[in-house]
């Protein structure tokens, strides 16, 4: 099987899983399809020789964020019956707007490639490995790395503060 066949099948599966996230009526099923989408995107990362990001994607997205979504869905006890309905006109308008967005994005992006043909030819193909990424992260990008820890502290404090049960109930 050629490489192009493999990438085409993987891409088709990714798009199918992403479509099922939007289409499924049941919220829990939506979450599970999104986990599947993240696994397929990770396999695309592996194909592109970005092993570190593939593993981090599975651990952070599929492992942590989606489990958080599942917990909230089960906490709120949402199921198929409580799912709000959308008007058919809104659906048609959304799909038309999405198609226009797709056309514009493709038209904008397809001319950007020709700029860097020479740089692409001399690529080394080992930039996705942990050694390379780690050295870059702790030398050139060490300040954003430290700032992101402040962001995490802020979001953690915010989440605890928001989720704390209030003493007085507002009717």
């Amino acid at each position, binding site marked *: 099987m*050629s*490489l*192009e066949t493999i*990438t085409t099948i993987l*891409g088709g599966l990714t*798009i199918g899983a*992403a479509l099922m*996230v*939007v289409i499924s009526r049941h*919220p829990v099923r*939506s*979450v599970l399809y*999104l986990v599947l*989408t993240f696994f397929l*995107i990770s396999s*695309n*990362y592996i194909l*592109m*020789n*970005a092993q570190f*990001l593939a593993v*981090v*994607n599975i651990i*952070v*997205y599929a492992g942590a964020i989606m489990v958080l*979504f599942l917990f*909230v869905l089960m*906490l*709120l006890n*949402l199921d198929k019956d*409580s799912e*709000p309905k*959308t008007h058919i006109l*809104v659906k048609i308008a*959304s799909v038309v*707007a*999405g*198609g226009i967005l*797709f056309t514009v994005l493709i038209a904008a992006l*397809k001319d950007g490639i020709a700029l*860097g043909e020479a*740089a*692409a030819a*001399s*690529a*080394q*193909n080992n*930039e*996705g490995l942990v050694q390379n990424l780690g050295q*870059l992260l702790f030398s050139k*990008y060490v300040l954003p790395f430290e700032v*992101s820890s402040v*962001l*995490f502290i802020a*979001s953690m404090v*915010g*989440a605890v503060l*928001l*989720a704390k049960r209030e003493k007085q109930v*507002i009717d």
Partner: protein
Amino acid sequence: MVLGSIFNAGVSIEYYIVLSTILFVIGAIGVMVRRNAIILLMCIELMLNAVNLLMVAFSTYFGKADGQIFVFFIMVVAAAEATVGLSILVMAYRNIRTTDVGLFNKLKG
């Protein structure tokens, strides 16, 4: 051992541009179509992942690791955003007993 990039083996960068644009548009359509606020947050995650995929594709294509560092930071911001967004949703659900964004239209306390 370092394997050759798939872009040297015949797969073109246009393939990944189209794939990640389709994923982004599916996420955008999801934000417009669905009314459950949790599904909306999930569609935003899907759009962020489409951008990540394109960043990794270009990073591999040009042989520069900076794009993959940015993907790492996007994941950090997405995790923080999901935490705060979900806790706001849980609080809103406690007050008005629904996650339908069409009913989040009363700004009174």
